[in-house]
Every structure is written in C-alpha cells, then in structure tokens.
C-alpha cells in the first residue's frame, strides 16, 4: 500500500517536470551573420544615425537610434559591444545642449494636450558641450553633419563651436580638436558599418525654405553656407573616400540613400490652402466670411485688378467665402511688379505711403498652389504679424505674403529633387563599385507615402503626428526625424537588406512595441 503511494508520487513528479519542447528551439544558432562579421559594428552618418528625434538627441531617444537597435539584433549573430556617446547627463531626458550656460540646442518637442500642439518641453537642458569625453564610439552619427564634414578636421573643436565652425555634438566626444569623424570611427576598427550620410547636403537647403544656394560647380565646400546644396563632384569624391576608408580594414557594410522631401512630413503636413471661413472667423464661419469679403474688397480685389492690368493675371484670385483658399506667398522667381501696383493703387486714390507699402509687399506675391510645399514650422507663422506691418496687412499668409523661408516653391523643389537623385545615384554607384549593400531609404520612405505594410499586417505611413495614429505614426514631432517606432522600421529595412545581401539570418524587431510622441497633459 505504502509502496504504491510512493510509486504514484514519483510518477507525478516525473510528469510534473514535463516541459514542452520545440523541434527547433530558438537560440543563437538559429541566426547567423552570413558573409558579414558584426564583431565591431560602426555607424557613421548624421542626425538619423545619432538617433535624433523631436528635434534633439535625448538620453532615452538615443537608446532608440537605429544603429543601437541594429546592434541589439546583431547580438545573436556574433555582434560585439556597441557604444554611443554618453548622454547620462541628460538626467531629465529633456534633450538639448548648453554651452557656457547658454542653451544652444532647445529641449525636445512634446505634445501639450492643454495647448494643442508640439512644444519644447519646459526645462533647462543639462547636457553641457564643454563636458568632453575624447572617445571614439561605435555610433559616430553626428547631428547636422554633411558628407564633407566627416572628413573635416576641426569639426569637433570646442573652440570652434561658438564661432559656428564646429559641431557641438562632435565636440563632446572628438578624440582631439583636430580629429575627424571618420578618423574617430576608424579607431573602432570596424568589421561592419552603416553609412547614412548626405541628407543634409540637400535637405538643409529644403528645410530652410530654399534660402541657400545651389553650389553645383563650386568645388570648395569650405565656402558653402549651412543651407546650401553640395556640389555633386564634391559629394561623389567625399562619398568614395568615406566608403573606401571604412572598408580599408576589410569591413562590409550598408549604405543608405537620401529620402526625397515629398516623403517627409516636414514638407507635406501643412496644406497650401488651409484658409477657410471657419478658420478665419475663429470658428465662426459667418464672421470669417465677412472678414473674407472685406479682404476681397479692400486687398485681394484691388491688387488682383492691378496685376491683371499689367499683364500678370492669375497671381492672386479672390478668396472663397465658403471653401478653402490658398495661402499668400512670396515667389522670388516672379517679375517684380511693385512699381506697377503702387502706381495703380495711387491712381485709385490709395494714400501714397500705403500704396508704396502694398506695392513693396505684393510685388512678387502670389497665392500658393499644390506645387508649393509649406514647411512644418510655417504652421505657427500663419496668421501672425510680420514685424512692422500695419493692420490690416498684418497676418502672414492671409493678408501678408509668407516669405522665402516659409515655403519651398517649385523651382526650389526641383533643385532639391535633382540633387537628391544625383546624390542617390552616386551612393548606389559607389556601393556597386565596392560590392556593398544599399538600403534604399528613399524608396522605402516613398513607400510610406502610400502605406508600407509590415510583417504583422500594420500599414505605416509618412504622416505627421495625429490623434488617430498615436500607435502608428513613425515620424517624430520635428517632422524630419523618425520617432522610436520609425527608427525600428528603418532598422528592419536595414536588417532585410543585410539578410539578403550578405546571406545572413538576423531577427526582425517589431516596430509596434516602440513608443511615439510624448504627450503631456500640460507643459
């Protein structure tokens, strides 16, 4: 009797220890690096590599940089340690930078639910640029860097930062004041690299509203302004040099192309024709319609007639009292009609000073069309008063034209598109010549415009933050850089390229589990 119970208890113990087992239990041997060697992975690039989101590097944001996410996936396939520039001093996760007690880079953007839009989070940045580490890190992404900056001595000189000659982010960790970004990267002896550089060579021009110069033909980048487009020959030779240097120790890698502006919410979020009676009437359409009628009678009508009389019809039409009307903008490619407008208005009895003012303001004005790209920050400019503009000609976009820096007009977009295409062709050409993989971020971002369906069935878009997409928006609040979720999508696309090109088997990450914008009840 007693024996039987012992026997039964033993049986129970045996079965109780029955563990479910898979035929192929996941382990590191499930995955492989293929022809690649991830033991020393180095990332070079700009803000997209550094992990900028919501306008800044922050302690938490940096942990979601695509190279850091990628390195975590490399870990199961022979990946080594991956280091990033230290942001421990960003104790409050505000982001931003200070130098000499002055804020030189504002805090990160958040959504303030009580106010209704993106704002810099209230607080003082705690990352001091003068706190220097003089260390090479695996993540050598430097926010703001253009292609030629990676080779520029002194780009990490602390003394150069206040003079605008050096980069505050690189100055924090450059191994010496004369170190180059690429030189520091090579100190990590890369076996594998990613290089996503070149965006700022064209996008800085675009984000400035095209206020810079297209430097095509100028082979001396030291003479370029910060908003200029880099010469293609400069870009080509710099890109080749970066690539061959990175590969000099036998490393393989992935280079990424430059997304076109039409796939970036910074350029696609604000419509060209947001003006409605409701909006102009502050929510009251009747009031708005009355305002519009007054504007049409006193401003749009007379100027439109004057322009038509001088052979420039179609620049400005009357505003709609029921539907959407386009923004007023300045187009520096238009013939300047200032004198003619002033003359016509003076003749019509408008006081001379006012006619003079209107002529000057509306000489190159027109209404925006669908071909104009309104920059994201312009949103907060529309309706505000330009300096010194008298009422009622004092509302940007409505009664006073938006300026060059607010809009990317078609001639500027064309320059951007051409430069982007040229640079991307160079990137692919250099990659092909060196037999390394290309992550075509331009093609991927363009897919986002119509919707990119990922493995779990979710469809992601290139839209800006909205309440209906709080779990799916990929771009951070600056409208240019991805948020954590977006960097996860980027990481997956790079993993797919590596898996295919280098015959590796790396696991994907699920972008869905990564956060989007920070929303606070108040700021």
């Amino acid at each position, binding site marked *: 009797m007693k024996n039987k119970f012992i026997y039964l208890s033993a049986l129970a113990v045996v*079965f109780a220890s*029955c*563990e479910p087992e898979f035929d192929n239990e996941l382990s590191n041997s499930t995955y492989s690096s293929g022809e690649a060697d991830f033991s020393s992975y180095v990332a070079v690039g700009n803000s997209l590599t550094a992990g900028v989101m919501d306008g800044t590097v922050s302690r938490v944001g940096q942990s979601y940089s695509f190279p850091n996410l990628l390195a975590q996936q490399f870990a199961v396939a022979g990946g080594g340690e991956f280091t990033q520039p230290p942001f421990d001093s960003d104790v409050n996760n505000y982001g931003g930078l200070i130098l000499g007690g002055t804020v030189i880079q504002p805090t990160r953007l958040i959504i303030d639910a009580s106010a209704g839009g993106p704002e810099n989070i209230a607080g003082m940045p705690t990352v001091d640029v003068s706190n220097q580490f003089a260390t090479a890190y695996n993540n050598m992404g430097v926010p703001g860097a253009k292609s030629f900056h990676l080779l520029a001595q002194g780009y990490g000189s602390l003394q150069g930062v206040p003079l605008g000659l050096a980069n505050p982010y690189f100055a924090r960790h450059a191994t010496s004041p004369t170190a180059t970004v690429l030189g520091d990267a090579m100190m990590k002896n890369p076996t594998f690299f990613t290089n996503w550089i070149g965006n700022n060579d064209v996008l800085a021009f675009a984000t400035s509203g095209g206020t810079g110069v297209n430097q095509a033909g100028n082979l001396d980048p030291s003479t370029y302004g910060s908003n200029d487009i880099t010469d293609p020959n400069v870009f080509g030779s710099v890109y080749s040099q970066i690539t061959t240097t990175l590969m000099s120790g036998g490393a393989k890698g992935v280079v990424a192309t430059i997304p076109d502006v039409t796939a970036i919410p910074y350029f696609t979020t604000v419509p060209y024709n947001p003006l409605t009676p409701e909006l*102009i009437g502050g929510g009251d359409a009747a009031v708005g319609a009355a305002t519009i009628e007054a504007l049409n009678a006193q401003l749009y009508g007379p100027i439109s007639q004057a322009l038509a009389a001088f052979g420039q019809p179609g620049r400005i039409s009357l505003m709609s009292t029921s539907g959407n009307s386009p923004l007023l903008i300045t187009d520096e490619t238009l013939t300047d009609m200032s004198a003619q407008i002033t003359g016509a208005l003076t003749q019509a009895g408008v006081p001379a000073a006012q006619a003079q003012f209107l002529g000057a303001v509306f000489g190159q004005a027109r209404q925006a069309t669908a071909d104009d790209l309104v920059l994201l920050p312009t949103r907060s400019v529309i309706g505000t008063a330009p300096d010194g503009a008298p009422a009622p000609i004092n509302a940007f976009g409505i009664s006073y034209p938006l300026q060059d820096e607010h809009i990317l007009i078609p001639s500027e977009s064309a320059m951007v598109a051409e430069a982007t295409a040229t640079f991307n062709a160079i990137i692919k050409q250099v990659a092909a010549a060196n037999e390394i993989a290309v992550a075509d971020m331009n093609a991927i971002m363009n897919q986002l415009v119509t919707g990119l369906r990922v493995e779990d069935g979710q469809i992601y878009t290139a839209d800006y933050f909205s*309440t209906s*997409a709080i779990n799916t928006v990929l771009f951070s609040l600056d409208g240019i850089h991805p948020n954590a979720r977006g960097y996860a999508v980027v990481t997956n696309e790079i993993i797919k390229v590596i898996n295919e090109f280098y015959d590796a088997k790396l*696991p994907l*990450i699920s972008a*869905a589990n990564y*956060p989007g914008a920070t929303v606070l009840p108040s700021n």
Partner: protein
Amino acid sequence: MLILINEFLKEKLTQIIKMRKLLSLTIAALTASSAFAGGYRVALQGQKQLAMGHTGVAVVNSAEVLFFNPAGMAFLEDRFNASVGANALFARTKFQNETYNWSASTENMGTPFNAYISYKVTDWLSAGIAVYTPYGSAVDWDQDWHGSHLVNNIDLKAVYFQPSVSIKLSDRLSIGGGPIYVNGAVEFNRNISRSITNEEGQRADLTIEATGVNAWGWTAGFMLEPFDDFMLGFNYRSEITMEARDGDATFNDLPAFLQANYTNTTFNADLPLPAEVTVGMSYKLNDKWMVAFDYNRAYWNVYESLTVSFANPAVPTSVNPRNYKDASTYRLGTQFKPNDKFAFRAGWYFDESPVQDGYFAPETPRNDSMGFTGGLTYQINSKLGVDVSFLYLHFDEVDNSYDHYTEDGNDGITFGGTYKNVVFSPGVGLTYSF
C-alpha cells in the same frame, strides 16, 4: 480682425483637443476573457471516468455518472453513492517566433474538484447532487510580453451545482436530468495598446474582474440497455451564457494625459458556454472487462466574438472576433476488474479545438490534442474505495496566429508564432457507497 492664430493653431495643428477620439482609438482593441474556450475545457470530472478516457455517458460505475449522464443514477446498485475527488492540473505552454526571436512561456497549476452524491429514493427514482469545476485553469504570461496587447494573464473559475433526478422507466431504460447553477469569476489583464506607456516607461494595462457571475442551465439524458451488458447513453447539456455585469475595470500605468478619461469603471460582457451533446456506449465483455466509447459535440459556433462594454462612455465597447467552430471529441476507455480489491482503467481521446486558424489567441493557446489516461481503484472495504488517475494531454507544436487585433483603425494586425502545450494532471478521489 485678422487675429486668427490661436484658433488656427488649435484646428490645424493636431486637433489634440479631441482627446476623446484618441482615447477611443487606443482602447478600441481591449478585450476580455475568452477562457471559456474549448481549449481550456480540460475534462477532469471524475477519477474513475477520467481514467477511462473521460468516457461515461453510457457507463454505470459510480456517482460520477451525475456529471456524465444523470439518467444513469437509477441504474446504480447501491442505495447511497458518493464520489469526491480533486486534480492537480499542470498546464504549460511555450511560445516562440523565429522572425522576431521571441520566446515566452506560461506555467500554471489548477485544482479542479468534484463531488457527487446519489440516493435511491425508491426502486424507480433516484436523486442526487453534483458539484464540479469544469473550468479551473489559467494562463499567466510574463507581464508585457510580446503578446501582452492580447493577454497578460487570465484566471477564471466556475463552480457548477447540479441537483439531479433519475427515473427508471423500465429495467432497461432510464431518464434523468436537472438544472445547473453556475457561479463563476474571471480576472483578465492585458495592455491597452502595443506601445502606450506611462511617463516611467511602464506599459499601460487594464484589468477586468468580475466575481459572483451566476447563470442557469440544464442537463438531461437517457440510458438504454437494449440487451444484456450493452448500454447506450445520450446526454444533452444546454448552452449557458455567463453574463458578467458591473465587473470592475481598472486601468494601470496610464500616462497622465489619458488619466482624465480612462477612469476606472465597470464593464459588462457575455460569455457563452456552448450546448453539448454526448452519445456513447459501453459493453461488458465479461465479469472483468468493460469498454466504453463516447462521442461529444460542442456547439461552439455561438462564440462569435467577445464584446465588452464599459460604463464610462469615454471607454468604447470592445469587440473581439473569436469565430469558434463546433468541435467534436472522441473518447475510448476500458476497465479491468481482476478482483474485488482492484480495478484498473485506461483510456484515450482525441479533442478537437474549436479555435480556427487566424483566431489562435494566446489566452487559449490550444490546438487539437490527444489525451492518454489511466488509473486504478483500491477498494479499502466493500464501502470505501480510493481512486487515482492521471491524464497526459499531448499537443503537436503548432504554427498559428491571431489576425484580428485592431490598432489605429487597421483590424488585421497579426500576432503569432509556434506554440507547444503540455498538460498533465494527477488526481485522487474517494468513493463511498452502501
């Protein structure tokens, strides 16, 4: 007249003031328990019958027949019959996904119990009462695991009380049945989305908890002995709808901006327990050997979706497609009684899962299974016996997914991978009759 900026910004920027919309979208995918699913209907309603593959609709063996077919009470030889027992149910599930290198597991123990008493009032009339717990298990994944938007953990308990009568219409035919009163409780937790966290980075989640959920159903059947030693049985169990009303819905780790609207509230939900038909037979080969066969059909198609509505109007109703299908179980069992002291039993069954491909949710991660059972009775004296049993449920590993999670308006989000289950349950009971 042109000071528009504030209004303009409020409209054009993000319409964040329409926070209610945000709330509805983020919570739209909330779900609650589907743990009344067939996958969790581990059949453990009597030591003797479990040991015989959980057959019993046509087996007259002990008071356990109250569960399997109350009509059989009238054929019990003794005037008073009592059976009590309990099981230790060990359920383990492992999950992995090769695409993402995900691994997770859940390990749980439940203690289903049962007690049956029958009393022969007259030669032709017997009465009895049955208490049993057909749902006594749980799933407990690691909090915030990869499928946490579907379930973190779920625990449900349901106790069945079933007074029964049985009437012997002739020496070869009896009928029987009775009402069923169910008292249940459920606790269920899941994350409110795949990414929302509070300011400290902790994932926001929701617990719904309902206790004292009551419902009524009934059971009826007959037993027919067309010729000696051959018994046919039929039993029907009605559909029972568990109507959870005013259960507690509690949010945890919400970000501050959601706290104003996602206040703790109450919820309503209906969980259907399907109607079941069982037919079967038993045959006594000789004095020592008996064999039995049951066929069971559960009408799971009633479980189309799990719908949870909340008292707080800011928390929208959650609809979770389940789309179960009717499912069959085939059972075989045998009993060998070499003498008055011992009885040995063995059985096998095939249990079809009601879960269809694409609806494989990790709260009931069960595919088709095969049960292997065994056990014995040691008769201490003519009145009192000790029953022991064991059950081992074998599952093939299965690649499947739940493809109907909704996120930001897209209702085709999939979560899946490879699942492997092991269920084991030793049990012990006492039988007393005179």
